[in-house]
């Protein structure tokens, strides 16, 4: 194990319960004070196939996935075949003795005996894994109670017995243990994945309405909202298609309920006309796009960062927008809140661009201070209302007074056609010109609130790594690995990819000896955007487009 970290990969078929085992071990680790980075890799099917749930764990801050496997828990024989070559030096395979793995690195487990019943095989795997890592039995027992106690009380005795046998059996093989260093930070953290944090960030910001059509890897956002809908007073509706979803959200927002949609590339393609509608009718709307590899259906359950240009340019006509790209679970929460704030104040569509890796990646997160955060208030804070009320009144900032229909005697009128200040359709070309300028004026305000790209490391380094979105952790860890090898390396990370303010970062690019742009796509979309906005050409690229997340090893291998 490298520097006190351990990379555990649980592999098996869909339907074998490997995600449940993975979630349980992850939660036990978080409660015990460890940091985790989870990478879920699965196929687009309900049963069979080959899936993995990887948990990288460390007693200190950790923010990137890893490739080399320290413990491979193989729930089927195929997992051993597929991942044996990925074992780190000294890595351990945990497999059923029945698989007949002829390898010294293999802990051959008599699962049938330890489980006592085939229903408890996963419990035995959990027990073995906990024991190998040097964790106590009590938290594992408590986790079983929480996961299965209410649903299957009749199975708890068998579960607990299997857990006890597995701990005892593993404890008798001290040479195989891979004990984690003690986590001094203690518990106190929550375990969240990116999509859960997006949903929580939306609720904290005041979302009241979400419409969606199911699409991996975005679906867990509306599902998380549905899970708390009654407690938090939300309406979440599964629409007949993505076109309906975006139009419902626009209707709800127009009527005063802060609203969002969440989808992936293909679904977003259907929503694009709605993006333009929100821009024209100046309706606040937060759109989360969880990227997966395209084109078309692509690799439905894998990850990619290839929709930056799509989201940036989606929607016919010209209107301002902001595009956020969270790099951590924490940023998923806060940037989603920020997107709601901008959507409300600048009255238009704002975007959160995430991806499958981050969507499904569980982390240990310091609980958000939800008590101290602000929410959006539709209709409040806009320019003072004068009669007659004009929904699209020309103002210097471009921001018109926004009222909610039904709340006052003022009438709220808007149109997808070009419209007069009072919202009625017009073909007066002077009015048209003024409305275009008014809408675009909001872009100046949005640009003024652009989040500064994060710079890490020395000024004017030998090597600067540029990145955006979910690759943040891997890029930072790659930089520190390279520094440990004697290189002078800095990082420049964009968590907001539009609008760009060249003054914020151009000096970083020109000041570095070499600049390499690291992106989870084939064509280097951020590099192209930077070229377009600054003229600066980033010639060196590290790209990944095989559907897997960029890891620190992946980057380091490609930097000469």
């Amino acid at each position: 194990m490298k520097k006190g970290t351990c990379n555990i990969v649980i592999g098996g078929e869909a339907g074998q319960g490997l995600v449940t085992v993975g979630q349980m071990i992850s939660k036990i680790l978080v409660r015990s004070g460890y940091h985790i980075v989870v990478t879920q890799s699965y196929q687009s099917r309900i049963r069979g196939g080959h899936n993995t749930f990887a948990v990288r764990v460390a007693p200190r801050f950790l923010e990137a996935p890893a490739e080399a496997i320290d413990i491979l828990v193989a729930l089927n024989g195929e997992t051993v075949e597929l991942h044996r070559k990925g074992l780190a030096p000294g890595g351990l395979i945990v497999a059923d003795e029945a698989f007949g793995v002829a390898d010294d690195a293999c802990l051959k487990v008599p699962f049938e005996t330890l489980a006592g019943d085939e229903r408890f095989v996963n419990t035995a795997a959990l027990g073995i894994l906990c024991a190998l890592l040097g964790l106590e039995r009590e938290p594992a027992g408590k986790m079983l109670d929480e996961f299965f106690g209410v649903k299957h009380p009749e199975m708890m005795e068998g579960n607990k017995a299997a857990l006890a046998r597995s701990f005892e059996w593993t404890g008798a093989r001290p040479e195989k243990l891979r004990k984690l260093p003690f986590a001094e930070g203690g518990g106190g953290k929550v375990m969240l994945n990116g999509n859960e944090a997006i949903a929580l960030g939306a609720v904290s910001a005041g979302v009241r309405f979400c419409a969606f059509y199911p699409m991996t890897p975005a679906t867990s956002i509306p599902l998380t909202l549905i899970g708390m809908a009654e407690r938090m007073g939300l309406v979440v509706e599964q629409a007949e298609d993505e076109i309906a979803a975006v139009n419902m959200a626009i209707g709800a927002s127009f009527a005063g309920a802060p609203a969002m949609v969440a989808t992936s590339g293909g679904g977003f393609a259907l929503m694009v006309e709605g993006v333009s509608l929100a821009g024209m009718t100046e309706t606040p709307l937060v759109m989360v796009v969880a990227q997966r590899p395209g084109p078309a259906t692509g690799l439905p359950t894998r990850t990619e960062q290839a929709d930056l240009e799509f989201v940036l340019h989606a929607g016919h006509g010209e209107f301002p927008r902001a595009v956020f790209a969270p790099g951590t679970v924490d940023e998923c929460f806060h940037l989603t809140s920020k997107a709601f704030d901008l959507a409300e104040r600048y009255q238009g569509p704002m975007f959160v661009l995430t991806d499958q890796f981050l969507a499904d990646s569980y982390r240990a997160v310091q609980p958000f201070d939800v008590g101290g955060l602000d929410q959006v208030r539709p209709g409040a804070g806009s320019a003072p209302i004068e009669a007659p009320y004009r929904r699209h009144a020309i103002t210097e900032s471009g921001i018109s007074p926004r009222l909610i229909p039904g709340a006052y005697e003022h009438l709220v009128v808007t149109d997808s056609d070009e419209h007069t200040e009072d919202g009625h359709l017009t073909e007066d070309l002077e009015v048209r010109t003024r409305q275009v300028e008014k809408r675009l004026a909001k872009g100046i305000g949005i640009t003024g609130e652009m989040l500064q790209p994060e710079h890490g490391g020395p000024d004017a380094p030998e090597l600067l790594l540029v990145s955006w979105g979910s690759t943040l952790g891997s890029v930072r860890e790659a930089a520190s690995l390279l520094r440990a090898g004697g290189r002078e390396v800095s990082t420049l990370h964009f968590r907001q990819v539009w609008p760009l303010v060249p003054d914020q970062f151009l000096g970083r690019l020109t000041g570095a000896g070499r600049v390499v742009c690291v992106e989870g796509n084939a064509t280097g979309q951020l590099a192209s955007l930077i070229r377009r906005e600054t003229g600066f050409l980033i010639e060196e690229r590290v790209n990944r487009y095989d559907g897997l997340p960029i890891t620190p090893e992946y980057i380091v291998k490609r930097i000469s």
Partner: protein
Amino acid sequence: MVTIEDYGTYETAWCPGCGNFSLLAGVKEALVEKGLEPHRVLFVSGIGQAAKAPHYLNANVFDGLHGRSLPVATGAKLANPELTVIVESGDGCNYGEGGNHLIAAIRRNIDITVIVHDNQVYGLTKGQASPTSQEGFTTKAQPGGVVLERFNPIAVAVAMHAGFVARSFTGYKEHLSEMIRRGIEHRGLALIDVLQPCVSFNHLNNFAWYKKRCYELPRDHDPADWEEAMKTAMEWGERIPIGVIYTNDRPPFEDRFPVLAGGPLVGRDVDRAELANVLETYR
């Protein structure tokens, strides 16, 4: 007291003799009869000559995209069930581009009144076939005549147990405003298919054509009788029934959300203590 003047009078972009004028008048009359103040009403429309109608009266208006009125109206109604929400658009918008949304809205049974200006032709784009165009109807786009089976909105809505299904004709103004009023009164989705001539692009189904065929349903027609309603819905051709063809009392969609029992979603504060409790469940 609400008067017809409260709903205003505006210059329109419609051709003289268009059925839209009668429809506009009928809508205003129904709203006045219901005593609804303009600011309590939200019109959602799409694209087409019919979709311009809400611009010619005083009310809240969201004039959106072609075919997408129903989802916008659905979102608005769920955000604020206290609004009277009316969708007003044409046969192309509601039955063509927005067909999937009509089916879903009927299934949801959300309390929205859908008024369809059905002139069996596309007017704004200058005379192509619409989903309700008659077979054989010739246009520049269908020079050999329409070969597609005519869409029967009434039969589809009745077959799907829509909450309220009615047909009217712009030639019978009182009947028309009564249908609209009853549609607004109905709690649930109300579909009102309104036959109207297009004086510029439909010279087949003109005023006289409709006038000759439309007849009011007899007093003993029981709109709660689904089988009878299905038979009535299939009647088209030499005689076309108008009136309330089918109704039921399925609860409206918005009643199914416990969170809406506490009033509109508008203006609520985030319950921060409860959100902290939710966050605790991830520990």
